[in-house]
């Protein structure tokens, strides 16, 4: 592992230990959509549940860097991150899922993936009839995206992800950050 990756991981552990640092860091930055100025006045998106939850298939989206062991890992070399996503088919055995993400401490998520991607909880709620079941696919992003790659996320990869979920027949989506 190179020095930069090691430093990122140490920083991630510190941020995990002191949540107040995260707030302070976030207050000094701008996270609003890059196109916010040009699109000023553009309405916030809003969609209604198409049917009762008990008949909805739910997709999960995580930015915790989850992907299949067989898929290319997220880019940990580019300091601006990686705006791409990985498709996680419903029913993928847990042992086939791994986390590539140096910017948060994922030791707890490695022990129990449900803390960032609640696949087991979703299956339980489906068995109880609270939701219809998982959508055919879930998505993994790696939440560290910065600089010019934010624009690529907004223009390309996030809309592509949305299209994939729509094609797969997801009725509603739960997103969880790292």
């Amino acid at each position, binding site marked *: 592992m190179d020095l930069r990756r090691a430093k990122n991981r140490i920083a991630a552990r510190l941020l995990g230990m002191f*949540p107040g640092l995260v*707030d302070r860091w976030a207050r000094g930055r701008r*996270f609003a959509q890059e196109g916010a100025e040009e699109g000023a006045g553009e309405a916030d998106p809003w969609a209604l549940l198409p049917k009762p939850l008990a008949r909805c298939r739910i997709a999960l*989206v995580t930015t915790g860097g989850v992907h299949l062991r067989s898929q290319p890992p997220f880019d940990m070399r580019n300091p601006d991150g990686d705006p791409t996503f990985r498709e996680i088919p419903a029913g993928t055995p847990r042992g086939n899922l791994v986390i590539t993400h140096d910017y948060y401490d994922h030791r*707890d998520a490695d022990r129990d993936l449900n803390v960032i991607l609640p696949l087991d909880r979703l299956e339980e709620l489906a068995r109880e009839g609270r939701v219809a079941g998982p959508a055919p696919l879930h998505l993994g992003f790696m939440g560290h995206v910065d600089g010019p790659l934010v624009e690529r996320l907004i223009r390309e990869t996030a809309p592509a992800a949305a299209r994939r979920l729509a094609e797969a027949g997801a*009725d509603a989506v739960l997103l969880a950050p790292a």
Partner: protein
Amino acid sequence: MGLVARAIEAAGIPTVSLSIVREITLQVRPPRALFLRWPLGHPLGEPGRPAQQRQVFLDALGLLESARGPGALLEPGYRWRRHTYPGESP
């Protein structure tokens, strides 16, 4: 992540986002967010604590049904490691 939520919502699929860093959520404005003042990397709580994870999931689903317009932000106020969830012994 809020940017991804907005893109999915714009494609016609309702979304609910868990939020750990309130400042980012306020700026990015995902359509619906459940805010938890918990450590990074733990949006659904602690490993091996299914009752807690389940409660967060249910709260999020509830927000899908109850929110009436964009920018809905719910704060259940669960304290990290100091809250007992349904199904757990106190």
